[in-house]
């Protein structure tokens, strides 16, 4: 039986890796993948807690997170295609339309 803390430490590591990736990379798709990594780290926490607390609720949450992630993937990738069509690039350094 693996202690709960082990899973949580792995999850924390993956989450931090995802955070660093989001903060340091410039390619929008890689950033997107890093976000997925962060989501998975959280999922892992949920399932771990669910198992150790003997309740299904955590896993249901994971189910919904996956659904949202799927929706996010669809919309996010469509956004990137649209952006790429305009700018010929998906470098986030180019995405400065927030400042007019």
């Amino acid at each position, binding site marked *: 039986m693996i202690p709960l803390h082990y899973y949580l430490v792995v999850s924390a590591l993956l989450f931090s890796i995802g955070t660093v990736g989001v*903060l340091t990379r410039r390619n929008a798709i890689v950033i997107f993948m890093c976000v997925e990594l962060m989501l998975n780290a959280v999922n892992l926490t949920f399932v771990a807690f669910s198992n150790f607390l003997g309740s299904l609720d955590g896993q249901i949450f994971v189910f919904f997170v996956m659904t949202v992630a799927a929706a996010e993937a669809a919309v996010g990738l469509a956004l990137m295609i649209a952006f790429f069509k305009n700018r010929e690039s998906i470098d*986030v350094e180019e995405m400065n339309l927030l400042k007019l």
Partner: protein
Amino acid sequence: MLEYVWLIPFFPLVGVIINGLFGKKIRNEAFIGGLATAMVASSFVVSCGILIQLIGMEPEQRVFQKVLFTWIQAGTFKADIGFLVDPLSAIMIMVVTGVGSLIHLYSIGYMHGEEGFYRYFTYLNLFTFSMLLLVLGGNMLLMFVGWEGVGLCSYLLIGYYFHKKSAGDAGKKAFVMNRVGDFGFLIGLFTIFWWLGTNHNVWTINFVELKQASELLPFGGVVTFATLCFFLGATGKSAQIPLYTWLPDAMEGPTPVSALIHAATMVTAGVYMIGRMNFVFIKSPTTMLVIACTGAATALFAATIGMAQNDIKRVLAYSTVSQLGYMFLAMGVGAFTAGVFHLMTHAFFKACLFLGSGSVIHAMHHALHHGHLHDDPQDMRNMGGLRKKMPITFVTFLVSTIAISGIPPFSGFFSKDEILWQAFSNPYHGTANVVLWAIGTIAACLTAFYMFRLVFMTFCGECRINPKVKDHLHESPLVITIPLMVLGLLATFGGFIGIPKLLGDLFGGIPNRFELWLEPVFEKSTEYAGQYAHAGTHYGHSVEGGLMLLSVGVAALGIGIAYTLYIASPSIPQRFTARFPGLHQAVYNKWYVDELYDFLFVNPCKALGRFLWKGFDVLVVDGIVNGVAAVVRGFSGVLRYTQSGFVHNYAMTMALGVVVILAFYIFR
């Protein structure tokens, strides 16, 4: 019929909405003018129905209140949109809608081809609506709404030719002076409401309830203050000393407007207001004396100015001020019935006079326009001999002039004589009575003089208009002359509803119907007056008859002087002017009252305004506002560099925030 009293103000409002919203698109003068006239005429029909129904009722029951809905309710304060029909308001709505519809009809002809025809009729209907609200309003606040509404319409219509600077200035002057008076009205309203509420827990502004509650008011004291405030409002609206100077300037508006607003209806609102609240005014002998003195002084003062004016409308304007002075004199001596009677007859003959002068101006204007001349069409020195050119106008004008001069049996005689008699015999003012009566009589003489001067200069003698255009002068169309004829008839026979008892007895016991009619309205004041008035001297019939003959005599004297000076030997006025240049100049320049007001009030106000503008507003207010803006701008100038627009920077900041908050939870 009484249930439908709300229709009376409603009809003109419909006219306002239709003409105001679509008039510019419609453009059809016959439709616009016809609609406006029809609306007021409909109100007149309803008013007639109400009057007939009132006549059919017992005198004590002739009070009817129709509450449409509650307008404002806040704590103990309650104001309804409700109308009050009683003998007084019945007379007023008859005058307003009757004279009003005639003047609307007249305006169709007079304003023909003017730019903004629809605007004129919209304002005129709006005025009628406001005036009806004023006279029908069942409480002081609703009356005040009408009061303000007529002031607004007066402003709009005086400034109708707004491209002329003088018209715009006149409008502003009227508006500002009315504001001064309105301030008094409001203070008076608050005082009565507050005093009755705090001292007797009667929180009301409704006239009927106030009439009941007037028992609780003391004689003098707070009532004097409140009524003086109300009277200030009346002086503003009704052009009495000291707030009369706007009315002569108001002649910049179109002539029918002068007839409707500045002669027949709006300017009498002050008289009506005093009549409506007679039970309050009578409780303050001081105020009554002030009103009587102000009225008498105005009557005389305005009459003197009227003698030396050359502008036909200005003469009539000063005459109006003077006649309003008579009405206030009547109010001040407790002769409310006589005041309202004079209000009514004055509405007839003064409206007729103004419309007649409008007819003359119309003809003059067209003739001068035809000859491409730029002479003033309103200056009487350019007129003369119009009698043959404009017979109908002349006859109606002459009839009205006789009426205003007080020659029996024309209407003005009955009302004016009643006022003078009451001024002489009333039980309130003691020895002041004789002075008031004397002033009134002198003013009556002057009235006859300047009115006949006007008639002689305009219609008699030889024609002084430029000979080139002499043949283009002709009588006005029927749409103009019909109202003249109707009003002329009214001015002639209107007085017969109020024949004084002395003459009535002489002709077989005809009662003074007008007095009987209004008796229920003024019953309270008669009751209160009995509580403090001195017994007074009781004068016999011989005195009354003598005074009546005397007043007719002075009127005849005035006419005689006018005939001598302007028909028989026209050189006398010039010699007189040459002899006393200072006096003539003073009278001609209206005793320099405008200049005095400029010096006393207008210029200091302007100086204060300029100081507040240049000193306070520009430096302090603008300084604060701009200072705040400058500080904000400085800070944002620094902070805007954090908004790089790059997603990364925002993500980084957010992550930093998360880390810092986590750290806070760990290390706190």
